[in-house]
Structures are given as C-alpha cells and as structure tokens.
C-alpha cells in the first residue's frame, strides 16, 4: 500500500461570520479519482483553493506526497504545484494566443524549456481533440473545446495529481461525454484526480470514491455504490401526472414504501420491494410511473435536501 498523494486533515476556513469549510479531511491514493459533490456554497471550491495554497486555512493541514517526498502547503507550494495539474472552474486561457502558444506559455511557468514544451504540444492537442485548431484562438472555440484546452494545459507538466473544479459545468452532453472519456484515459494512465462536480452521473461514472460536502462539512464519504446501499432503499418508483401529489398521503401506498418524498409535481416512493407498489399503482392508469434503481442523485438529495440553495 503506497502513501496517499494528498492528505487533507481537519481543514477549516471562515469568511467573516460564516464557516465555509468545517473540519474537512480526506486522502487520495495513487491512481484514485475522488469526487467532491455538494450544493453550491458547500465549500468545494474553497477546499480546492486551500489545497492549492491560494487560500490560507484557519486550521488544519494540507500535505502532499508526490515523488516520494512529503511536503506541506503553503510552505512548499512551488515544489507541490510543479507536480500538479489544475483546471479551475472558469477558464483562464490567454485570449491573445493561439492554442499552441497557450500551451507553450503555460509550460514556461513550470520552468520547462521551450523545446521540451514544443515536443509535447502535438500530443496535448491530440489528447484534447484540438489538433485541427492549433492555430485558432480560444475565442473561436466552443465551450467544450475551451475546457479540453484547459485540461490539456493542466497536463503540460505531466502532473501526478489533477485538481479539476467542475470541469464539465456548462457543456453539452456530447462535450461532456468526450471530457469523461479523456478523464478515464488519464486514470488508465495512472494519474490521480480530485474532481468537483454537480453531475451525479459523472461522479458515479468516474469517481472511485466520493466526498459529500454540505455547509462546509463532510456529511458522507465512500464508494458510490456503497453509499447508495448504505443510505437508500434499492428501488425507486417515481409517479407524476395530474393528481399524483395526492398519492403522497395515501396510507395504503405509503405502507408499501419505506419512504415517500415529494419534489415538484413528482412523488418518489423508495422501497426494497417495488412489485406490490407497482401493482397498487395500476389503479391509477392516468399517472405516469417510472421504476428504476436508486442512484447517486437520490442519495445527494436525501443527504443535502431538496430546497434550492440561495448561494447558487
């Protein structure tokens, strides 16, 4: 068992009166993808900023063991960042440079020689599926292309660990799938990833382990399937349509489900035995029903609630 690449222990950060990160700890093992999920304002980005030494924690420690040497933030920030790749929530690409120049200029910040960077540029552009756009400027790219360029730029120094803050937010499904495919490829190559996301299918698909944050606190941690099994009944029956909401208070139906929840116009029945419930629902042919296994989104909503976060 090799050492963790990053060890975050008891991190705490307060802005004025509000505690935005409260006693958060986690590890990432080599080759692992850790997903950090949570509503807006849960403390995901602040945690990443502290991991990068950009924000100073009020308490706690961030330590990295990259290349076998244990180093702490922010004392050894430069040595640590030399081995990290970062994609921040908003693109910081240079609008005045074409794609190849963006990569060249960024590589120089790592102290790399021009020849070494230039040798990497074709493979980085190919990885980002942007070879045909090498001479274009970021302003001419679609949202998905920009994010892939940001990812390629983060790889210029061949990092061991990638910190990706919402790398797929705002992308269309095709662009998102391409990004997922690239991230899978990186994991296969042995890279480790810390990923924040609002997409539960992304978290389920890519992440070996998940950290659920809410109001700055860690409220759950584990493998996606284990978390679902631990917190939820295996089956969900969604019912919607005119009159569906009345079923939420139907005692006979409630008796067939372990838990009933209402969100908008839809009633969710959580159960280990869906068959009797589905049979009972046949009495309401005007309603639409959907029977499916419980997923990460159900878990997320159960843990963090269904109300909209104003910070969002």
């Amino acid at each position, binding site marked *: 068992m090799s050492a963790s690449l990053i060890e975050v222990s*008891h991190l705490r950060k307060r802005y004025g009166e509000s505690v935005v990160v409260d006693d958060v700890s986690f590890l990432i093992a080599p080759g692992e993808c850790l997903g950090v999920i949570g509503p807006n304002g849960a403390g995901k980005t602040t945690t990443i900023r502290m991991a990068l030494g950009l924000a100073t924690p009020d308490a706690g420690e961030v330590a990295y063991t990259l290349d076998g040497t244990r180093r702490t933030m922010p004392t050894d920030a*430069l040595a640590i960042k030399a081995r990290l790749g970062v994609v921040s929530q908003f693109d910081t690409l240079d609008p005045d440079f074409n794609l190849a120049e963006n990569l060249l200029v960024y590589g120089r910040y790592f102290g790399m020689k021009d020849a070494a960077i230039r040798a990497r540029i074709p493979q980085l552009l190919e990885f980002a599926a942007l070879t045909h756009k090498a001479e274009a400027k970021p302003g001419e790219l679609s949202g998905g292309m920009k994010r892939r360029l940001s990812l390629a730029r983060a790889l210029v120094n061949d990092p061991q660990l990638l910190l990706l803050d919402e790398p797929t937010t705002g992308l269309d499904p095709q662009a998102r799938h391409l990004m997922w495919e690239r991230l899978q490829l990186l994991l296969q190559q042995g890279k480790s990833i810390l990923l924040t996301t609002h997409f539960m299918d992304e978290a389920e698909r890519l992440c070996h382990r998940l950290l659920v944050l809410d109001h700055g606190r860690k409220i759950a941690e584990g493998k996606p399937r284990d978390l679902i099994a631990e917190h939820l009944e295996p089956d969900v029956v969604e019912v919607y349509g005119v009159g569906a909401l009345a079923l939420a208070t139907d005692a006979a139906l409630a008796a067939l489900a372990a838990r009933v929840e209402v969100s908008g116009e839809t009633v969710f029945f959580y159960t280990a035995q869906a068959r009797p419930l589905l049979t009972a629902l046949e009495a309401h042919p005007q309603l639409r029903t959907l029977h499916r296994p419980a997923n990460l989104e159900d878990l997320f909503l159960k843990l963090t609630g269904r109300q909209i976060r104003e910070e969002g």
Partner: protein
Amino acid sequence: MSQVSTASVWAAPRLSMRWWPVFLRNLLVWRKLAIPSLVGNIAEPLMWLVAFGYGLGALVGQVQLGDQKVPYILFLASGSICMSAMNAASFEALYSAFSRMHVQKTWDGILNAPVRLDDVVLAEMLWAAFKALFTVTAILGVMLALGISHSPKLLVAWPVLLFVGITFSCIALIFNALAKGYDFFTYYFTLFLTPMMFLSGIFFPREQLPPLVRAVADWLPLSAAVELVRPLFMDRWPDQPVRHLVVLIAFAGVSFWLALALTRKRFRN
C-alpha cells in the same frame, strides 16, 4: 498537529527568477500588437511637443533655468519625456495589468503553476517599466531626428527614464490592487497624475509656483525625474543627483511593498 501559516501580507517580498516567464508572456502578446501600440504611445507626446514647443515656444522664447537660458522646446521636450515615461508605465500597470489580473484572470491561471504572486507582481512592474522604456526610446529617436537635443548625455537619460518607469509602475500597482473596475483609474489620473504633471516643472519652471506649493512639489517623484533628465538634455550633469535618485528609489520601494501587500490581501481569500 496543524501548523497554520499566518504570514502577514506585509511580509518581505519573496522574489525569484520565476517572474521571467510572466514577463515573457506579456512581451509575446505585445509583439503581436507592437506597431499600433507604438503609434498610440508616441503620437500623443509628439503632438504636445509640436503644439506647445513650437507654438507656445514662439511666444515664450527662452526659459531662464538657473544661470542658463534654454529654448522652450528643449525645456518642454526634456520634461515631457519624463511625463511620457510616467504615462506609459501608469497605463500599462493600471488598465492592462487590471485586465490580466481581474478581467481575463490570467494571474489566476499563472498562480495554479509554480509561480508566486510576488513574482507575478514583480513581472507586471518590470513589464510596465519596459513599456515606458520602449515609448521613451521611440520619442527620444524622434527628438534626435528633430534636432531638439544632441547631448551625448542622453545615453545616461535613457536608464534614468527606465527608473522613472519603474517608480511609476510601482505606484500604479497600488491602485491596481485596490481597483474594483476600470473607472477607478480615472480618479488616479485626474486627481494624482494630472496635478503632478503641472507641479513638476514640465511646462513651466517650478519657480513659478507659490512657495508653499513648491515646497511640496519639489519632493514629487515626477519633479525628481525632471531634475535628473532635463540637465542631461542640455549636456550638463544634474545638480543634486543623489537627492533626486533617492526620491525615485524611495517612492519605488515603498510603493512596491505597499502594492504587493495590497495585492496579497486581494488574492488571499
């Protein structure tokens, strides 16, 4: 268990050669826009020079400067080149640096790489000073061509003007660190740089100022710049070079430290 860093924003600058790739980045962008930017940078100072130097100069004739009478065009040229260095450095360290820092988030990208904020600020400071030097060089070239001065001591004026650029980019970076938007810089130009332009002996000798105003004006960084550069245009050595250099260095040093502290504060959260 936990060792939390509480390093003050006022800690001594931690500078390294990591500023160089950041400077190089700005140079690479500028290279693409150098010609149009050159026209903008030298057209305005030259218009001032022609309009005031030749126009007003015909009315004024000679200016008494100590024991010497000098043509007004020479008087104005040697002062206005300091103003050009000031303006070029200030524009770059305000509008352009702010674009990179706040609008384009270029600095955020750089800070994800192994580059310290201190080095980014240093790079921006030196870059703005370089822009000033570039502008000044172009204007000096035109002045030589117009035959305004042929003093060999202009070779000394050149590095002095680079230092003038450094001083004013340090001062400007304070305001960059405080700015919420571009509008803020208008205050800096109209409330700080424009009055200084009139108080520093560029258009008329500071002897014309009321004594109290003059006592303050004598210690302005632009006055120090003019006192150093003007004699060199007239093939003479400045009267109190140490004093004026100390003024420039003091303004540069204190301003850089203050700018750095305020920038660290801005980026801390």
